[in-house]
């Protein structure tokens, strides 16, 4: 078992690498760049900013830097030497280092432990004035777990943004999943047990409706009815826990509508799958055996049928997770929730390269992990899979 999990985890590496590569080049090949919108920027400033983000390098080099294979030059700055001057001493506050740089392109570290390098930019032989660029080489990329600085959110790294916004998406996703599983499995199991009765038709009609009323129809409708007309729940936003909430315990009521909107759709899918799986299982021979043993119908269902009947639902969990993630794009837009989904859409629109890449990789890792969990869950439910 552990060997299997280990093997699967190893397999993540090439997959993530492929995703990173494809996304990196796809994003870069798209027309436009993060700064093309800012009209008032002069060409020179733009070049400087690009250089600051390392975009002056050839693409392949940027790619290697992003992966963290190649080191990039950071804290780059220029030192100009007047004629006759052959060294300068100054402090770099940001890295807490005091440097002495010589006109012969040499750095003497005086304080601070990082290796500094210098490179001639211009040596004007006639006036004997030279310009030296001082920088540090640092590897910080995917291999180091760094997703890089955001291009648009000044002063924030992609890691920060994900750390801030993902918990909101996660919370929403968990509520939706809970609603989907609880409602879906209950409705599906009841429908299967009472096949061709009102208890089958009614939940299944609702399930059909749930599938045909996609989130972006359901969402506005719920808002219209429960938010605007009945005014039961807030229509938008995402307040913090413990604040003045809808419920006394400080649980914010603005979770209700988004969670229901997203949850109902998947509840419908789960209900249909569960019903199908249960019917299939209930028609099998071993259910007859169980009945012949004199078990009550409840015990037949709970002990013997449920496990097999839930297998299709469990294998749907993987796609469902992925669906809920992408569903959150829509939900977060409708309900103006500052979750990761909205950041992703914004980042894509603004060409915030690092944020796009970072989000894609984060989502990919998440989905890979969830798929692995689903597979383990399946093996746990089905001893025949476990044997393989």
């Amino acid at each position, binding site marked *: 078992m552990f060997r299997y999990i280990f093997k699967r985890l190893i397999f993540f590496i090439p997959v993530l690498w492929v995703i990173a590569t494809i996304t990196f080049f796809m994003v870069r090949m798209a*027309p436009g760049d993060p700064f093309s919108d800012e009209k008032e920027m002069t060409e020179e400033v733009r070049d400087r900013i690009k250089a600051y983000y390392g975009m002056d390098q050839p693409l392949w080099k940027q790619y290697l830097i992003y992966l963290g294979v190649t080191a990039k030059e950071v804290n780059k700055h220029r030192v100009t030497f007047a004629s006759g001057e052959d060294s300068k001493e100054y402090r770099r506050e940001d890295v807490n280092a005091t440097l002495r740089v010589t006109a012969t392109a040499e750095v003497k570290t005086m304080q601070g432990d990082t290796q500094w390098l210098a490179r001639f930019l211009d040596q004007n032989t006639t006036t004997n004035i030279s310009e030296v660029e001082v920088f540090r080489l640092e590897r910080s990329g995917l291999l180091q777990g760094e997703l890089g600085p955001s291009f648009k959110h000044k002063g924030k790294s992609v890691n920060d943004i994900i750390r801030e916004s993902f918990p909101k998406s996660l919370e929403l996703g968990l509520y939706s999943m809970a609603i989907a599983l609880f409602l879906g499995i209950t409705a599906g199991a009841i429908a299967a047990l009472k096949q061709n009765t009102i208890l089958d038709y009614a939940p299944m009609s609702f399930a059909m409706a749930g599938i*045909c009323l996609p989130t972006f*129809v359901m969402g*506005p409708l719920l808002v219209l009815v429960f938010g605007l007309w009945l005014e039961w729940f807030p229509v938008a936003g995402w307040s913090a826990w413990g604040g003045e909430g809808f419920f006394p315990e400080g649980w914010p009521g603005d979770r209700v509508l988004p969670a229901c909107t997203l949850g109902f759709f998947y509840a419908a899918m789960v209900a249909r799958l569960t019903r199908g799986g249960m019917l299939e299982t209930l028609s099998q021979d071993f259910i007859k055996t169980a009945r012949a043993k004199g078990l009550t119908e409840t015990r037949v269902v709970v002990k013997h049928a449920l496990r097999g009947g839930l297998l299709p639902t469990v294998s749907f969990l993987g796609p469902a997770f*992925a669906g809920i993630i*992408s569903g959150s794009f829509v939900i977060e837009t409708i309900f103006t929730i500052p979750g990761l989904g909205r950041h*992703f859409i914004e980042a894509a629109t603004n060409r915030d390269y690092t944020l*796009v890449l970072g989000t894609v990789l984060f989502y*990919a890792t998440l989905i890979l992990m969830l*798929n692995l969990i689903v597979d383990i869950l399946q093996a746990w439910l089905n001893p025949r899979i476990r044997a393989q």
Partner: protein
Amino acid sequence: MKRDRLADVKFDEGTSLWKDARRRLFQNKMAVFGLCAFSLVTLLSFVGPSLLPYDHETIDLPYQARPPLSDKHSFVCPNHDYVHLYSVDENCYVCNTPLEPAAIQPARHLMGTDKLGRDLCAAVLRGGRVSLAVGFMATAVSLVIGVIWGAVAGYFGGRVDQFLMRIVDVLYALPFLIFVVLLMVMFGRNFLLLFFAIGFVEWLTMSRIVRAQVMALKNQEFVEAAVALGYGRMRIIFCHLLPNLLGPVIIYTTLTVPAVMLLESVLSFLGLGVQAPDTSWGVLIKQGAEGMEDYPWLLLFPAAFFSLTLFSLNFIGDGLRDALDPKSSKD
């Protein structure tokens, strides 16, 4: 001589599985309803716009933001000469004296108009054309890729199969919608890209279904019998495998169309799909949702059409599944 003998024979006309399935399909009320509703929506979307007096871009000024089938009242203030084209209040906004009705013009917008005075009905039908077109085109793309991929994997088996299906497994694990979003954002929103982007997402399941079916069929003894009878590979694939594959493929295709339409509308809803002047149900729903408090019909009509289409396609799909499923057709 022999022929004379057979000429007298009254052949029992057999019922083919197709005939049988058709009968079952038409016995299924929901499926028939789905078929009718879907045909109606399709017909309206493709023929309707040319029958309407307005297209979806024409601005009918006096009728701005009118509810469905509402007539137009104009009011006159006794103190001014102002004509209020329509009035929410009963009083003049300048002098606050009660208004007097001046004229009533007949209703002329079946589903009302939007804030600018554009006919919603025209927009909904026009949007339907786009949504349906995307639905079918993208499904076609996914169908072609999925069937070929799955059939090759299933038929050749062994390493080819392992290789192809491993790719599908990997792709399954990817957050595909994210890539579609990326593609649409990064490379501009054009139709062709939309078809292919969505098609590329939806082919995976199709390939799995086709593969499973081919594998099952390959082990059926009639395929082995065909080899034993010396039939060529092409004959086996086209005369024996393909017709038997058609059922599940048809079922899944019908269920893919609504999935694709859903995806398209999600993109359009996020503002990443179809672009003005073109419109689609997703776009209309988005616009409707923005002003739904004041103009609920702008949300309700496109949503109703969209949902009706999804309903009918799903009913047809379920009906086809019941009709074509070999398990239920045995005995």
